[in-house]
């Protein structure tokens, strides 16, 4: 039988190419996370030979929300990050730095929903007609982009073109809903710590949040106020489900505690029985 196995094994070793991978991976390192991919854009833009004004880009990007979600240089600018000779080649889709008036469409390649709301907004219209007005980079930055949050609306940022009053009204209109979303997000994470599978609910919350945020880009306070109820309703539904899950978890704890109590009492009775000799 061993001979049979040995004979069988020979043709099968032809498929053993995965074995090198595992030899490398099995004994020489722990099965730790993803290996950092080679990215020649970052390599050049962090090297000493680069012009100083381009050097900050790599550092800013590494600290950004895009970097945390594995969105790298080529995802926006094109080019081939694995091949240094083609990293800035138009043949690989390299578009370089967008001109200021191209910025909305540049970011809107992915953020389609937001682009639509922006172009219909006063901000977008002002930008299109006179070139004066905020584009994406004005509020969010270009490489050091952080996760969108309500604090982006600030006096310093928003009073560059007009009084802060309008921005403040908008911020107030957004505030409660944003706070609720943050609360529910935390609630879901707490549930996850208790072993509950939350991904479906988390995706639902994200969808509500994304829709709400896209709404902001229309900078129409009245629209935001009108639709806040609708969002509030959706968020209540999420909250009810979270509370129901929390109640269920408490019930389970109590139920199994009760069973534990039964076993403890039986154990004690048995212990007494052991100690009471039969005579």
């Amino acid at each position, binding site marked *: 039988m061993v001979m049979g196995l040995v004979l069988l094994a020979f043709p099968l070793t032809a498929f053993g190419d995965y074995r090198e991978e595992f030899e490398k991976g099995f004994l020489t390192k722990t099965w730790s996370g993803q290996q950092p991919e080679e990215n020649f854009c970052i390599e050049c833009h962090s090297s000493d030979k680069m012009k100083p004004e381009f050097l900050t880009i790599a550092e800013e990007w590494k600290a950004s929300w895009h970097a945390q979600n594995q969105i790298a240089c080529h995802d926006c600018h094109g080019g081939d990050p694995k091949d240094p000779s083609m990293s800035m080649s138009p043949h690989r889709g390299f578009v370089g730095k967008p001109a200021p008036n191209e910025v909305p469409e540049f970011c809107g390649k992915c953020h389609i929903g937001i682009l639509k709301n922006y172009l219909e907004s006063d901000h977008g219209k002002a930008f299109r007609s006179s070139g004066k007005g905020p584009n994406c980079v004005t509020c969010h930055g270009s490489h050091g982009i952080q996760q969108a949050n309500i604090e982006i609306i600030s006096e310093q940022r928003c009073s560059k073109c007009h009084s802060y009053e309008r921005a403040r009204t908008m911020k107030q209109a957004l505030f409660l809903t944003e706070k609720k979303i943050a609360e529910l997000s935390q609630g879901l994470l707490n549930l996850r710590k208790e072993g509950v599978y939350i991904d479906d609910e988390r*995706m639902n919350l994200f969808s509500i949040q994304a829709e709400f945020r896209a709404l902001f880009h229309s900078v129409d306070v009245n629209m935001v106020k009108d639709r806040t109820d609708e969002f509030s309703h959706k968020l209540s539904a999420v909250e009810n489900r979270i509370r129901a899950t929390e109640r269920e978890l408490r019930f389970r704890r109590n139920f199994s505690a009760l069973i534990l109590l039964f076993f403890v009492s*039986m154990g004690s009775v048995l212990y007494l029985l052991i100690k009471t000799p039969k005579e």
Partner: protein
Amino acid sequence: MRRRTFLRYLLAVCGTVSFASFAYPLMRFLAPPGDANKEKKVTLAKKDIPAGTSRIVLFDEKPVIVINHPGKGYIALSKVCTHLGCLVEFDTARNLLICPCHAGTYDLEGNVLSGPPPRPLAKIPLRVEGEQLVIG
């Protein structure tokens, strides 16, 4: 002797109660699931969806898009993008489903064409019964 007898009775009582505290969950566990599933189905009339158009329905509290694809028939797909959960939009010009959050693009069968979604859109079972479409 009386002590032993007493303890044995106590054990019997505790044992019965413990057994019951497992028997009840077991009964509930094994009981056939209710007929709630039957009520969830959604019905649409065929004439409500002409060729090349779509309708949105709510199935199991989630939005579903029912598309009448000319030449391929009816299909019901979940509108929930498999990337982060935003709701996809039907681009009638290009016959594609596009997610407004990060441009995840799907064809009309729900397969991912480009963008970040990791999986195709969930298909919802759809049956044609005469002039009606039954989803679910």
